[in-house]
């Protein structure tokens, strides 16, 4: 009886809630905020894709991340160093302006101008040549088979609109006056941004003049950031939200058990791994004096083998992770499946430690973020506990990401001995991983800036350069595999897993969960 009355009340309330919103308005929430609307001001997954519903690039990616034509109908490498893009005709910006090659050329200059956070979208020494209104050439200094890999998140802006509104200069943090483009959006995409209150709410409306046929049935979208995990989940459970992400792994069961909601999970592209200082002669945070144990391959392997990755998967990630043997998701590298992790073997690890001269282990400080990756702090705790079994005492320093990154990156002088980090190659290509994480670097970070441990393997550097200019896919993949093998054999990094994606969705909503954690409204239908 009681249940029945509760149900009645909730039904009534649900009814009253529904009447206030149109049935086809999608309400969703993400943990972070959408700040400036300028598509070049922040190179960050959520921002790029939230804006990607209003702005489009020359290419786009489908549900399975394959590259599709978007504003460019087709493209070809006409000469090894010259790419020709045929642009789509009849495309209009939200304000009614026509989309032409002028706009692409303008966006090309703007994206690599000072203040842009997306300068890597185009090579620094490339130039652009307009062939005609709907054809444009990109001229490079050398071959680059992955030139367009990240162009789905390089939004094409309207030259006329940007110039008219005095927004040619990219909105940068150092600006003292707000840039028009930071508060308004004018793209070609399926949705228009009609109101934007940073950190509070962003409202989208369907763009009826979109060039492509709409597969969604939405009239509008409301985005509200909710920082607190529990509140975000509550908003879904109470029916106030149609979709929220990410959801904590421990709440997946609850969301599935709840009638009317379901948790969508899947592997993400981001690889979580452990890095070790292999550059300094003595570790900053350790009781080992006069030596750096991480310079010894046996110690690195001992650490590797001491970690029970299955336990982390089951206990910490609640099954929602894919243990990884290499530094990239198998989705993004065809030969990824050929690698295997060193087996979990405490005795072998102990033997390695003894062999390396640390039979009783040593102590080491570990840096860990506590608000960046899925259960990041819990993973570190688990790792610390596992390493204790081989005598390594880990002093864990878990901090919010603002402090964490300031400490372990170049800006903090790579102030770490042992750290946990996650990496998604923006181009979905291994070269990005090698270039950022595995090449030699100097103390200021020139080279691979995110090789925090600072290991240096000339062979990997050499391979990286070859991979960049190798246009033959098969040969290229072999070179990549070779680089990863070197890393694996030397245990330069300890890859842990690809973390899982977890989205909470109302039953009446159908959508596509892409492995890059991007949410595109054009795949959504709401009944």
């Amino acid at each position, binding site marked *: 009886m009681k249940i029945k009355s509760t149900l009645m009340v909730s039904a009534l309330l649900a009814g009253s809630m529904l009447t206030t919103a149109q049935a086809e308005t999608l309400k969703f929430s993400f943990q972070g905020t959408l700040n400036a609307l300028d598509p070049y001001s922040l190179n960050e997954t959520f921002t790029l894709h939230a804006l990607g519903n209003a702005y489009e690039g020359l290419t786009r990616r489908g549900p399975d991340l394959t590259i599709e034509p978007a504003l460019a109908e087709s493209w070809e490498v006409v000469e090894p160093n010259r790419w020709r893009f045929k642009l789509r005709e009849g495309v209009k910006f939200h304000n009614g302006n026509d989309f032409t090659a002028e706009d692409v050329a303008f966006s090309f200059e703007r994206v690599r101008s000072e203040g842009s956070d997306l300068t890597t979208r185009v090579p620094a020494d490339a130039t652009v040549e307009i062939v005609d209104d709907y054809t444009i050439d990109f001229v490079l200094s050398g071959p680059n088979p992955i030139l367009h890999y990240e162009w789905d998140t390089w939004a094409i802006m309207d030259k006329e609109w940007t110039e008219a509104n005095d927004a040619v200069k990219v909105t940068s943090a150092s600006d003292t006056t707000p840039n028009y483009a930071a508060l308004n959006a004018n793209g070609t995409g399926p949705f228009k941004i009609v109101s934007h209150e940073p950190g509070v709410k962003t409202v989208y409306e369907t763009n009826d003049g979109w060039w492509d046929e709409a597969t969604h049935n939405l009239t509008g979208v409301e985005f509200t950031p909710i920082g607190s995990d*529990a509140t975000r989940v509550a908003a879904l459970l109470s029916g106030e939200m149609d979709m929220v992400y990410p959801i904590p792994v*421990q709440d997946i069961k609850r969301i599935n058990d709840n009638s009317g909601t379901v948790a969508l999970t899947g592997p993400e592209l981001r690889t979580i791994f452990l890095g070790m200082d292999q550059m300094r002669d003595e570790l900053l945070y350790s009781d080992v004096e006069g030596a750096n144990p991480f310079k010894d391959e046996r110690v690195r392997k001992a650490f590797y083998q001491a970690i029970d990755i299955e336990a982390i998967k089951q206990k910490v990630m609640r099954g929602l992770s894919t243990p990884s043997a290499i530094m990239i998701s198998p989705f993004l590298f065809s030969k990824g499946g050929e690698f295997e992790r060193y087996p979990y073997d405490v005795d072998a690890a102990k033997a390695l430690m003894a062999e390396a001269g640390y039979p009783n282990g040593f102590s080491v400080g570990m840096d860990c973020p506590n*608000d960046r990756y899925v259960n990041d702090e819990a993973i570190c705790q688990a790792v610390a506990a596992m390493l204790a079994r081989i005598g390594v005492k880990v002093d*864990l320093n878990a901090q919010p990401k603002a402090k964490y990154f300031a400490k372990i990156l170049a800006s903090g002088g790579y102030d770490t001995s042992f750290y946990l980090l996650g990496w998604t190659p923006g181009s979905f290509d291994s070269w990005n991983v090698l270039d950022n994480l595995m090449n030699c670097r100097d103390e200021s970070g020139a080279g691979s800036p995110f090789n925090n441990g600072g290991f240096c393997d000339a062979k990997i550097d050499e391979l990286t350069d070859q991979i960049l200019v190798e246009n033959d896919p098969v040969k290229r993949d072999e070179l990549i595999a070779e680089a990863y093998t070197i890393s694996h054999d030397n245990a330069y990094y300890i890859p842990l897993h690809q973390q899982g994606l977890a989205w909470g969705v109302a039953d009446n909503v159908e959508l596509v969960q892409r492995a890059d954690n991007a949410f595109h409204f054009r795949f959504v239908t709401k009944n």
Partner: protein
Amino acid sequence: MRIADIQLTFPAILIALLIDGVAAGIFGGIDREIFAFYILIVSLALSFWVQYARTVRGSTMVEKNKEYVQAARVIGIPAVIIMVRHILPNVMGPVLVIATINLALAIVTEATLSFLGVGMPPTQPSLGTLIAIGNDFLYSGEWWIAIFPGLALAILVLNVNLLGDWLRDALNPKLR
């Protein structure tokens, strides 16, 4: 007292947050696991001292005009000794009362700091950290992770209050 007034403009939680930030900035190079504990203590202490200062000041202003203080002055006892031997024991009552309430507040603040991600390191769990962690598990059906530390805290606070009441009476010779 002006300093106290200024500090009152910062609520305890912000002070703790800021001190924690500053300490981490200054002692960034030192092992956090060892120092987090002390940093937390210092930041909590620094955020609560004002209340004690104000209360003691209020009581002292009353006590110092009492004749026993004047009697001590007539004997010639110096101010410092009068403060320590005569006034201090007589102003401890209200201090104990706030202390008992503040103990709860300190634990709660510690929990809140953990909620904000700057509390105790995870390898040294505290009641507050437990509640903050359990908070994330409330919906998953693992309600006990947060509820039991919460209950423990409530019972602790209740007991400390009773202890405080008892202590206040026990230290007062009038009620002995």
